[in-house]
Structure formats: structure tokens, C-alpha cells
């Protein structure tokens, strides 16, 4: 049975994708997209890259043009967070109450911080964060970044491009090693150093204090790094606070079955806030990537309309990309589980390379830098193909 009204709470890539897919599948009922930020839905990946460096502007990173929503009858309620879910009753911060037949939770996640935020102790998750950071970054600004992951690495590259003096602090011995293995991680840390970023590894940030106009970053090994500005790139926390008392099963994210359904009838969850059950792994996993969000959105839209989602070869294979120092890093599958690797294009000492990852004789992942075609063409084969792959010519 098709619902008459669907409310999607969260207006970023996952929420917008659910709305679009519902209309594409022929849903004719009322469709509301609620977002806590005042901005029209925008794309987050550019925030740490071209938006931060000033190569693009907020009006150019919109997910859709304004007419897209009006043409499709998608009602936007922006600048107002949802504060409570009771069954399928959604209460907004301004007192409005929505009572649809189906609710999609797509409230995303927020950045983990290093303390009470202040203008010089920041995170980078939303458009306002990026614009704030951009205003503060100038030639010679001392930027200290805690965390060498996606946000940290991309912000470091962007800040260097703006002439800032950058220190990157990573708790692990090597950033990205837990995701891509030591060899590729070593190849990825080199450009930071070549660009003049001070990289301190193996020592987490313990505390940040402000004194005399300077941020003092105390590391676990006793070092103190001084900066004008401190950015925490320490991962994210799912936005589930508004779901307290809803009866939903919440762990690291809203627990869903393998198709996005929650414990409440008519309530689904997608994107960074959702932890879908992965039958292959036997546990719930919260994916925080653009591709996962759009794939989940399609599954949930089909489900809400009572259709069975179409199986897509390679769907569900984790994928991420990261742009740093003008190079694109891409990863598919689960390289972190590999027991064997092969460089199939270029070399780890060069700018461009692709690595395949195997485990117990199966291809389980592919990753590379500036080697998009060499990485991406393996997606359908991952989890199915024997490893090492037989040469097929051309790859």
C-alpha cells in the first residue's frame, strides 16, 4: 500500500535522494523534506575542497536547483530541526507537528569536537563551518588539524593552497593505514610532507587550551603545538538525540534491517544516521559515504512504495573518494580486510597507481590515486572474483 504522505527528516544527500526516487517511482502523495540548516540542500564533499579554497561558492554546490523541488511537489521546510518522534508523529522545533504515514530519518551526523566550540576551535561539517574556516584562513595562518582522516587530509591540502602554515596530528602511526594498508597509506602521507605540512603521527591530541590569543594543543606525548586556529577532524556522531524516547533501537546510529526499516512501522532510516544490518558481516554498519547514502535512498524509496528494490551488481560495495593536493584517491570494497595486495597500475612511488586487495583468494577491494578507471572498473567483480585477477588486457 502506498502512503499518502511521506516526511523525510534531513535534507542532505540521502534525504534529497529519497524524495527524488519516490517521485521517480511515481509516488503522488504529499512529500515533505525537513532540514535543520537554513540553506537549500547542498553537496558536502566540496566543503573541505573547492569551497574552502574559494574555487567554488555556496550557490554552486546546491544539490538541486530551486525549481527541482517545486516541479516535483517537494515541500522544503528548512532551518527548523525536528525535536521529537512519537510513532510517525514528527515534532519540529518551531512547534509544528507533522503526522505522515511514513517517516524517513535522514538526520546525518555531526562532527566530533575537541571541546566547546569557539571561533578558533572548530569542526568542518556544514556550509557555515566551511565559510567560517575560509574567512579565517589566510597566508601564514597557523592551522592545527587534529585527525588525519578525510576531513583532516583534505583541509590540510586546501589550507596549504591558501598559504596557511599547517600541522596535521594523527593518533595512529600512519593516517589511512587502517583503511588502505601501510604501503598505500605511506604513499598518501608523502604529499602532505612535500607540500610543507608538518605531520605528527602516533600521538593523539589530549587537550586544547586558549591563552594569550593562541590555541595551545597538548599532545599525549607531551608536545605542545601552537596555532591560531584548531580544526578537529575526528569523525562523526550520528544525530539521534531527537529520537530519544521514540522506542527506536539506537546504537551507533539508528539500527535498521538490510532494507532500511527500523523497529517502528512506517519509519525508515538512511545515510550517515543509519546503521543497516549487513547480512554478509552479521552486524549493523553505519556507512558515511555519499554512494552508500544514495544507494540506501533508492532501496528505502522502493520499500516505502511496497516494491522490492532491484538488486544492483556491486551495490553495497563500500566506496569513498578523497581529493588531496590535486589528486583523487578512491577506494572500493574492504581493503582493510586484505591478506594480499597487488599493484596493478603505476607504482606507489608515483603520482598515479592502483592497488587490488585480496583475501583468501577473492578480490575484496581496489584503491588508487589518480587511477579512477583502474579502480572503478573492478566494482562488480569485488566479492565475486578469484584473486589475483586473471589479466584481461587493457586494465
Amino acid at each position: 500500500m502506498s502512503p499518502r504522505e511521506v516526511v523525510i527528516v534531513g535534507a542532505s544527500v540521502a534525504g534529497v535522494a529519497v524524495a527524488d526516487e519516490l517521485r521517480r517511482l511515481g509516488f503522488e502523495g504529499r512529500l515533505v523534506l525537513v532540514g535543520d540548516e537554513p540553506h537549500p540542500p547542498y553537496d558536502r564533499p566540496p566543503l573541505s575542497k573547492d569551497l574552502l579554497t574559494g574555487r567554488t561558492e555556496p550557490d554552486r554546490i546546491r544539490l538541486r536547483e530551486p525549481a527541482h523541488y517545486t516541479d516535483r511537489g517537494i515541500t522544503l521546510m528548512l532551518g527548523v530541526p525536528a525535536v521529537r518522534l512519537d510513532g510517525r508523529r514528527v515534532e519540529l522545533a518551531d512547534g509544528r507537528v507533522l503526522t505522515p504515514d511514513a517517516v524517513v530519518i535522514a538526520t546525518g551526523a555531526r562532527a566530533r569536537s575537541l571541546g566547546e566550540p569557539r571561533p578558533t576551535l572548530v569542526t568542518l561539517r556544514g556550509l557555515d563551518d566551511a565559510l567560517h574556516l575560509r574567512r579565517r584562513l589566510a597566508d601564514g595562518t597557523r592551522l592545527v588539524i587534529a585527525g588525519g582522516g578525510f576531513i583532516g587530509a583534505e583541509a590540510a591540502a586546501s589550507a596549504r593552497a591558501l598559504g596557511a602554515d599547517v600541522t596535521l596530528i594523527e593518533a595512529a602511526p600512519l593516517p589511512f593505514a587502517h583503511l588502505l594498508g601501510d604501503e598505500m597509506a605511506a604513499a598518501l602521507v608523502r604529499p602532505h610532507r612535500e607540500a610543507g605540512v608538518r605531520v605528527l603521527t602516533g600521538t593523539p591530541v589530549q587537550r586544547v587550551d586558549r591563552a594569550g590569543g593562541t590555541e595551545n594543543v597538548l599532545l599525549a606525548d607531551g608536545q605542545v603545538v601552537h596555532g591560531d586556529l584548531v580544526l578537529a577532524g575526528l569523525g562523526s556522531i550520528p544525530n539521534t538525540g531527537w529520537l530519544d524516547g521514540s522506542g527506536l533501537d539506537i546504537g551507533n546510529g539508528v539500527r535498521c534491517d538490510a532494507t532500511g526499516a527500523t523497529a517502528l512501522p512506517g519509519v525508515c532510516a538512511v545515510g550517515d544516521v543509519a546503521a543497516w544490518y549487513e547480512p554478509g558481516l552479521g552486524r549493523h554498519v553505519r556507512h558515511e559515504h555519499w554512494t552508500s547514502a544514495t544507494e540506501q535512498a533508492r532501496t528505502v524509496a522502493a520499500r516505502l512504495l511496497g516494491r522490492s528494490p532491484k538488486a544492483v551488481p556491486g551495490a553495497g560495495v563500500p566506496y569513498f573518494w578523497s581529493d588531496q593536493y590535486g589528486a583523487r584517491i578512491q577506494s572500493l570494497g574492504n581493503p582493510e580486510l586484505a591478506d594480499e595486495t597487488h599493484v596493478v597500475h603505476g607504482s606507489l612511488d608515483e603520482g598515479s597507481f592502483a592497488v587490488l586487495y585480496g583475501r583468501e583468494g577473492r578480490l575484496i577491494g581496489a584503491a588508487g590515486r589518480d587511477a579512477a578507471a583502474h579502480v572503478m572498473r573492478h566494482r562488480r567483480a569485488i566479492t565475486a572474483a578469484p584473486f589475483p585477477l586473471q589479466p584481461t588486457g587493457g586494465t
Partner: protein
Amino acid sequence: MRVTIDEDKCCGYAACLSVAEKVFDLAADNIAAVLVEHPQGELADQAREAAAACPTSAIILLDDTE
């Protein structure tokens, strides 16, 4: 169906290749190239998947009947 690429939007993620490697390739300039302009059957389905998977919405699918 006719498949075209908005070359201003394409950023070379190669997501299209990951779901439809018979329909798309990356050219030397890292911009997607269409190998099968009028895909049929399964290839048409793959082209639709590719359009949905493109991070920059650079794949344009035109209905032949229009």
C-alpha cells in the same frame, strides 16, 4: 534511450564505469566517454544505474521517443 555526458559536470570519478563498464569509459582527459550511445535491455538498465550513481549528475539520458 540516448546517453550523453555533460562534460562541464563530469569530474572523472568513474562511478559510471563501476556499474556500466560496457557503456562508459574514461577518456585520456579523465572525462567519461560513452561507448554505447543507444543501449538496449540490460545495458540500458546499467546506464540508468550509472546516471543515479554519478556524484556530479553528469550523465544525461534522453528518451528516444521524445
